[in-house]
């Protein structure tokens, strides 16, 4: 457990509701947890339970209706540069090359081309895209595009990397490779990560702790520590020790699905 290390993010009694013409839609209810420096957190939960909402709140894109989110004890009040968010879609600008896309955060901060070039080369190397700097994103495979998106998020040197189902749109094999690459990247960087995923295997392989949310409105039903030794190896996916974590996560997820089927998309409350 990482209790000894410093608290990076503190989510306290977070309640988020969307006011719609048809009524109020509660997305998150009473969510509280802490994220420690250098920790890898996975968020899992039924579809529509508010995982993206939670991540957007952590990025400062969405103000909480009630409660508070603090980064190093300072409440997050607006878009937060210390948080690097990667969406389910890579969201690379099609008129910029891979290198130019990764350089965007640096450019907006007014770094000189020379400074940028060096940093971009490092980042490309980090995500294994060296040699693709002058390619346009349209030419990249889904997995490569998503790695470029991760590199762009890392370019701003965020204290916490927020990943919203970054591999959701990839095929199973690529997805597994990406998870392995992310594992290696994280073990190298030791950056704090909060990642939403639908795959319990991915969560078990990558996370230090898995936060399990109930169906909407999302409440935390479990925070499950993954007691698998670090550094981990992607081959662990086949290991019985990981399989038992996976079983545990599945069990927890089942509990969170309310009997009257919370997955109904009906926005009425």
């Amino acid at each position, binding site marked *: 457990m990482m209790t000894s290390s410093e608290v990076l993010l503190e989510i306290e009694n977070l309640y988020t509701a969307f006011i719609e013409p048809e009524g109020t839609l509660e997305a998150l209810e009473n969510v509280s947890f802490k994220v420690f420096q250098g920790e890898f957190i996975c968020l899992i939960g039924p579809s529509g339970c508010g995982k993206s909402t939670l991540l957007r709140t952590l990025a400062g894109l969405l103000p909480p209706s009630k409660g508070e989110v603090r980064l190093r004890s300072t409440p997050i009040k607006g878009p937060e540069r210390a948080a690097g968010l990667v*969406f389910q879609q890579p969201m690379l*600008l099609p008129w*910029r090359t891979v290198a130019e896309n990764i350089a965007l955060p640096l450019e*907006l901060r007014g770094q000189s081309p020379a400074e940028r070039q060096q940093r971009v080369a490092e980042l490309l190397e980090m995500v294994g895209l060296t040699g693709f700097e002058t390619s346009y994103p349209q*030419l990249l495979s889904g997995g490569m595009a998503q790695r470029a998106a991760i590199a762009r998020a890392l370019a701003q040197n965020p204290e916490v990397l927020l990943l919203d189902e970054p591999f959701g749109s990839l095929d199973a094999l690529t997805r597994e490779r990406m998870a392995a690459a992310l594992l290696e990247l994280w073990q190298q960087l030791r950056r704090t990560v909060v990642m939403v995923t639908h795959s319990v295997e991915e969560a078990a392989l990558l996370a230090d702790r898995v936060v399990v949310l109930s169906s909407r409105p999302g409440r935390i039903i479990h925070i499950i520590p993954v007691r698998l030794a670090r550094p981990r190896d992607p081959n662990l996916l086949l290991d019985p020790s990981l399989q038992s974590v996976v079983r545990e996560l599945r069990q927890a997820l089942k509990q969170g699905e309310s009997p009257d089927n919370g997955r109904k998309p009906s926005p009425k409350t």
Partner: protein
Amino acid sequence: MGWHNKKINGQQHPSPLLYLLSLGLVLLLWQGALLALEDSARRFILPTIAEVVTRFLKLLGDGSLVRHTGITLLEMGLGLALGTGTALVLGYAVAHSRFLAHLLEPIIVTSQAMPIVALAPLLAIWFGPGLVSKVLVCALIVFFPILVNVSSGLNHIDTGFQQVFRLLEATRWQRFRWLEVPATLPAFLTGLRVGGTSAAMGAVVGEFVASSAGLGYLVKQGQNLYDTPLMFVAILTLTLLALATYGALGLIERQVLKWRCIGKT
């Protein structure tokens, strides 16, 4: 078959040889029509190719063709600049202010339905037979396709991209410079190509209504004097002008939007 498909979807450019072939076809039809017409009648309505070429060279030699073309070009250019500038400013305003959008939308829709050329006589009364009235007709014709394209282009920027820029705490200027301009450029250039090509029409209509120079004036003059070779020369020059505008804008589009052709199959 493959050739045909390529030509229709506009991805591949037909070879110059084909242009020559279609030109030859037109000249052949022309010559055929001359033969079919009676000798007395054809003098008035259809000049021979040789007559047109001779007239063209003569007008070119005494500098009058250049002068008239220059005037029409000036009207087109100023109209294009004025129409584009106004459309860009208003397009941006409409896309960013709900109030302005609601205020201007009915006006824009109504004026889009209005045939602009019908305004030309009115503009001639208001602004006289000089340069201004033609520039205004051109500008109005250019204005709407660009305005519509730009404001809808701005409105359709992916919200994901906008969140990326918000997250990076981009300033308004940065968002404009790095997101809105490049994202809207394709739509803008489409509008510009449509508008730019019809700018020639605006200038000619303006000159028809009231003028003392310009290619439209030459056409009108030719009509009054039954001088069909003159009309042919002026019309062909106008066509070349519009084609050149279209070609130049297309070239700019390909240069600026290189990224767009990539990855498209």
